[in-house]
Structure formats: C-alpha cells, structure tokens
C-alpha cells in the first residue's frame, strides 16, 4: 500500500515535470539562443555558455525595432481603451436591459468574433484606403476592432449579467440614470473584469499578424510581429536566428510577465469568454 502511494507520487511528480519542461522549454531555448552569436549558434547548447548581448544590439540596429515596439504599444493600448469604453456601455445594455432584439444582437456579436479575418481582408483594405488610413497606425487600430470589440462585449456581458440585480434597483430607487449606474455603481465592482478583458484584448492586439502584415508597408510603421517575421539576412537561407530570438525574447517578456501577474484573472476571463452552452 505504502509503496503504491509513493510510486503514485513519484509518477505525478514526473508528469508535472514533463509538463513544465514541455511548456517552458521552447521559450527557454529562445533565451539561450539569443545570447549566442557567430558560429556558437550552430551548436546545440542546453544552457547559456556565455552572455553575449550582440544579438540584442543588432535586433535594434538592423531595423527600427524600438519603433516597432512603440507602434505595437500604441496600437494595443488604443485598441484596449476603445474597446473597453465601447464594451462597458454596450455590455450594460446587453446584460441588464431587456429589449427586443437583444438575443439576435448577442448572436451577431458572437458570430463576428468567429469571422475568419481573411474573409474581410479585401473589403477592409478598400475601407481603410478610402479613409486614408492605409499604411498607418490608426488604420490598424480600427481594423483590430473586428476581433477585440466582439470579444470584449461578450466577456463583459457575462460579467455584467452576474452583478446583483438588487444593487441596480437600489440605485434606480436612489435616482441613478443608466450612465450613473455604470460609472458610479458598477465600474468599481467591475474593475477586475475590466483588467482581465483589457489584458486579453491587449494580448490579442499585440500578437495580431495578418492585418499588420497586409495594411502596413514601411519598416518604421510596422508592429512587432511583422517586424520579427520579416527580419531577414542576406538570403532566405541565412536568417539571423540570433537577432530573431533576441527580438522575440524582448517582445515576449512583458506579455509573459503580465500573464503571470494576472494569471488567475486571465483564466476566469477565458472561461467567461467561452459560451455557457
């Protein structure tokens, strides 16, 4: 009996260890690689032998990587702010007011969040060209609404719906308008949900590739994913793996840090995002 118990424990331990290695190793290996240069790159090492920062330097000198990071931050922050603002008010309406067509509207929003991005590519291209926003950050901000907005609205609606009904009624009795209810009564209760949703929207915008690849032409205006994807060497077969890994590490660390700090909230947000069927 005792032995079986210990065996079970050891088994579990190894499974968990395997799991952690499986999850973390690729990123770890990217970090290891980012500290190697020259011919060291072409030898497989499982731990850093030297700390060589030259890849980090070249990641920022070979292309305007600092601008790319800045662009990504600007776009992601703007997208988060805009979708949260629109999402909070819309989710109040969808989560707490009964009106005709609410179910249909929710259905549409869910459907939009499942749109294949490529399905709107040509229409979107025409639209932002018409608005004069082709090859500009505001253009990206607007196009990103297609995935952040439905998602934000959907998640916030599930949170909104769970707020106690009597609290809202008490504020109605106190003479609060819907706007006051949102800002003075619900927002203070919703901020954890806002942090979660905002973070998820941020990550989605930070990671977006297809639109950024298609709607931006210049190196200086690119966002991080496109910049990394297009880091090239003299030929296709001589990719600067060291710089690519250095760049990857630089843009991933903030996201990973955010995710680790807010991990509990993120999991709850992801589960809320999935429909309760």
């Amino acid at each position, binding site marked *: 009996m005792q032995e079986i118990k210990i065996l079970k424990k050891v088994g579990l331990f190894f499974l968990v260890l395997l799991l952690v290695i499986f999850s973390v190793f690729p990123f770890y290996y990217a970090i290891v690689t980012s500290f190697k240069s020259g011919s060291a790159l072409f030898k497989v090492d499982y731990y850093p032998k030297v700390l060589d920062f030259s890849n980090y330097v070249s990641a920022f000198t070979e292309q305007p990587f600092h601008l790319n990071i800045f662009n990504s931050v600007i776009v992601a922050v703007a997208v988060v702010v805009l979708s949260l603002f629109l999402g909070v008010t819309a989710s109040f309406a969808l989560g707490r007011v009964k009106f005709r067509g609410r179910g249909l509207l929710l259905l549409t929003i869910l459907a939009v969040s499942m749109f294949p991005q490529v399905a709107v590519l040509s229409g979107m291209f025409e639209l932002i060209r018409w608005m004069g926003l082709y090859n500009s950050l505001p253009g990206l901000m607007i196009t990103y609404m297609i995935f952040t907005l439905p998602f934000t609205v959907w998640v916030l609606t599930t949170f909104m719906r769970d707020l*106690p009904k009597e609290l809202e*009624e*008490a*504020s109605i*009795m*106190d003479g*609060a308008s819907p706007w*006051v209810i949102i800002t003075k009564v619900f927002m203070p*209760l919703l901020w954890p949900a806002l942090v979660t949703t905002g973070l998820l929207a941020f990550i989605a915008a930070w990671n977006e590739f297809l639109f950024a690849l298609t709607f931006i032409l210049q190196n200086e205006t690119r966002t991080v994913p496109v910049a990394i994807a297009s880091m090239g060497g003299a030929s296709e077969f001589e990719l600067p793996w060291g710089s690519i890994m250095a760049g990857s590490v630089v843009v991933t660390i903030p996201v990973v840090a955010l995710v680790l700090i807010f991990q509990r909230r993120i999991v709850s947000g992801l589960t809320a995002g999935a429909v309760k069927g």
Partner: protein
Amino acid sequence: MSEIRMRGVYKQFGKERIIENVNLDIEDGEFVVFVGPSGCGKSTLLRLVAGLEDITKGDLHIGGKRVNNLPPPERGVAMVFQSYALYPHMTVYENMAFGLRLAKTDTQTIDERVRKAGDILQLDQLLTRLPKELSGGQRQRVAIGRAIVREPGVFLFDEPLSNLDAALRVQTRIEIAKLHSDLGASMIYVTHDQVEAMTLANKIVLLNAGEAVIKDGSVAQVGSPLELYHQPCNKFVAGFIGSPKMNFIDGELVSSDGSKSTIKLPDGSQVEASVDASAAQPGMKVTLGIRPEHFDQQGASSTAKGKVAYAEHLGEASLFYLELAGSNELLTLRKEGDVLANRGDMIEISIPRDYCHLFNDSDRAFPRTVTYEQEMLTTV
C-alpha cells in the same frame, strides 16, 4: 400626503398572469403588510408600487397623482431590499448620501439628514465603515437609513428581516415599529413571517396563489390582523393565518337559523356553530373550521374522542395530532402548558360553538354571529 390607491391593477410577465385585479387603498401613515404563500406575487406587487416593474393594466395613484409611468425616484417612495443591496465600495455615510447627491441636495442638508438617520439607527459610530465591515444587523440598518434620508412618503420593505437571526429579527422588528410611529410615513412591508405580519400591521393584505388568482383576483382578504384571524372570508385565508393551521372537518349542513347552524360530522355526530348559514340549503356539503387553540373554550355543543397520533411539547404549550373516527385527516389540538399524553392515548375534545367557522361548498365563509370583539371579551 401619500395615500396609495390601486384600481384594477394587473401584472403579467409575458403570458404568466401574476397579479390580477388588485383594488387596494392604503391611507397616509398606515402600516400595511403583504403576506401570502411563496411565489404568489408579494414582491411583484411591491415592485409595482416602487416603479421597478411596469403595471400591465390598471391605475396606481400615490398622493392623489397617477404614477403608473413615473420613474421610481419621482414617486416619493423608498425601498429596503432583502439582501440590503448596499453599494459595496462606498462607506456607510456615502451609501446614505448617494441618493441625495444625485438629487443635487446641498451638502449641508445631506450631512444633517445622514447624521440624523445615523442617530436614529445607532449608526453614528459606523459612518466611515464599508459595508463589508458591518454585521448583518448593522447592514440592514444602513439599508433602512438609506431610505430614511430621502424622507419618503412611503417606505417599501421586501422581507427585510429574513436574513437575520431570530433574536435580531425580533429586535429589528420592534425598531421598525418604533420608526413607523416616529416618522408617521406609510409603510408597505412584505413578509412570510406571520408574527411579523400580526405584530406590525395596521392592515394585512393576504394574496391568493395558484388558480384562485385568476378566479378571485390576487387579493384574498384585506383587514386588520384580528379581522383576518377571526373572520377569514374563505378557507384559504382561514388556513393561512394562524399557526398551527386551522383544522378543517368535512360535514353536511343539517339546519340553520339566523344565529346558529347544525352540522353533521363524518362520524355521524352533530355539532352546533354560531354561524349564519341560512343562505344555504340544508344538505349542502360544508367544511367546519376550528383553530387548534380553541378546542378548550367553553360553550361546546358536543364532544368527541381522538387518539393521539403524535405529540409535540413546546414548553409553553403542547400540540397533539389526533386521529378522529370517520376522518382520515389528523386534527391538531393545542393545549396551554405541559400536558402529558402519549401516542395512543385518547383525548377528549369539545367543539365550542362560538369558535367555529363554516365554509360552503365553494370554500366561502358563512358569516359568524359572534364578532371577535365579543369573542375577546369572553376570552379575557
């Protein structure tokens, strides 16, 4: 002045008919309690008055003005919720001041009113606390304070005490009664606790449930607590008010003059009741009602013997559930003090004629010929 008049008030949720044809007058300063079985629409009726639900049909007047489509803050009513519904991120002070702030009351008035309410409710030491730092009873008082500061003509309470423990419930009940006499405002109070209803109300509104709502409208009977207790207008009211429940024995009307009636019981014996059943034909199926606590009163026309099926000893009284010959329902008997009797013992009961209720074949009560004032005199 904030008297409330309801005329032909209906409420439907989709196809569900919840409130039917309510006609009710609540005078200024009255304390009205809504009671009824769970799910009968007490909260809904209260929320119609508050303005939290739309009235499907009918008229609601508060203070002489039709308020059907006035939003809640303009009706001069304030509501206290069962779950307190305090704003969790605001202090006690801010909770009470919130409504006044929204109404753009000047700061000094707000401060005066909040402090006064704090004094009345003994919250003055707690004004800077957050709701989560308060006990259940204190939270309930803040919720009441939030209503008081708005100086409404009508207070609405929806089961305000049901989340409190027994002792606190009694204490807060007394405080609410005191508040009513101090403020002189009208109050409507929803509860399913009979003691609360009987002790607080000037007027009880008992609501029907189920089929009866469609047939007779939502209101089963309106009256003072003692009226409902002594002169229930039908079997439902008679059974609902009073605890333990009134006993019902099926019988057949033998005869009736203007002042008393004779009823044949299932075991063949006959009893007299001080009820005017002259409107009915002899031979009609009737139901005889008598409360468990009334068997020992004087003036019995006949006696019967029952076998104790089981007994409950409460200390101040004992309850016995009796099997009666010819009837398959148990009869409840309440005797003051400790009465020792066990399962299987035979107990003799008498059926005093002045305490009998009689219901016709459609469960309406025949008028009793003894008024309850007389009845009380004989009791004292």
